[in-house]
């Protein structure tokens, strides 16, 4: 017989899916802006030097946008990769460890990213 609903508590998958679903479009818009910036603003070729990057981060809205981009892309990516791993049906114990790794990596990189943003903005 199929085992009881899998280890994570019911309804949790819907929440994770919703996060992935909501971060997706935000992420795509910001990513396109992010890529456009790299190729247009600044000298013809985009942000091609340290100085130009620092100058780019001097306004208030760019760091906020980049921070949103940072958190949404990390959340989306990790939930997605977790989904792929779930497709391979890891053992519940392994899944619990992996969940911990995902959380640690996710929060860790968000903090690191925020610190980097602040540092670059401060250089201005």
């Amino acid at each position: 017989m199929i085992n009881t609903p899998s280890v994570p508590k019911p309804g949790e998958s819907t929440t994770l899916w919703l996060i992935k679903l909501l971060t997706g479009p935000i992420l795509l818009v910001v990513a396109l802006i992010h890529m456009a910036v790299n190729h247009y603003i600044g000298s013809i070729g985009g942000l091609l030097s340290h100085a130009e990057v620092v100058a780019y981060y001097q306004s208030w809205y760019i760091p906020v946008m980049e921070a949103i981009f940072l958190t949404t892309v990390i959340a989306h990516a990790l939930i997605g990769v977790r989904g792929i791993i779930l497709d391979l049906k890891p053992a519940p114990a392994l899944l619990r460890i992996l969940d911990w790794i995902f959380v640690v990596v996710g929060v860790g990189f968000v903090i690191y990213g925020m610190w980097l943003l602040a540092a670059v903005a401060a250089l201005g």
Partner: protein
Amino acid sequence: MAEQWNITLVIRRQKQGQQPYDQEFKMEANPDENVIDLVERVWAFHDKTLNYAHACHHSTCGACGMRVNNVEKLTCITPVRSVVSNGGTLRVDPMRNFPVISDLAVDMGELYRRMELVGHHPVNSDRQEAIQKEFRPAGPADPGEDFIRLSDCIECGLCMSACPIVGSTPDYLGPAPLAGAHQAGLASNPKLLDIVGGTDGVWRCHSAYECTAVCPSNVDPGWRIMELRRMLIGEKLKSWFSPRKSVEVSK
């Protein structure tokens, strides 16, 4: 005598505990007959130890699902003309993702158990089955009352064989049971919401739509999985904003 083609039929053979191997049969075939007729002729005239599942021969029982040239087909309604040309080769394999009993016969037990788990109705009201607007409702336009008839889903397992995720994830409910849950209606069984919304439910589906591509009887599991997602998201948002009084779910 109707037109006769010469074709080579390659059947995947496997007896318990032995390595699978391909067996070739050169035979004459009428392009308008169905693949199951060829398999039956091989059984009747060449090799009575060939095991294959079949019963109704007109797509109501769902027993004769196989992979024909690597595509899941209900072999009783797959004309020879549609899968091979004169002088060509036709490959028949058992369905994927089900344990093989022997040769082309697979054990569909797990699919039946899950259909029972989600409470799929074997007979259902005609209107309830033809719920999707794109469906042409079975039967005359509007004969007045609603009729009870055998469900669209014939539990043939083709979608379960075609789905890439069922292949890698044994516990994933799979397209047919999820479509069965949608047909049964989430309100029919309060536990259903958590089974369908769990990690082995609709969130494992990755929109390959292979199930809808191979479904021989209009169930369109892909569409029904997305409908279940819409209901689940609705339920989740409702539970965030107003505590979940009763599981009131729109069909």
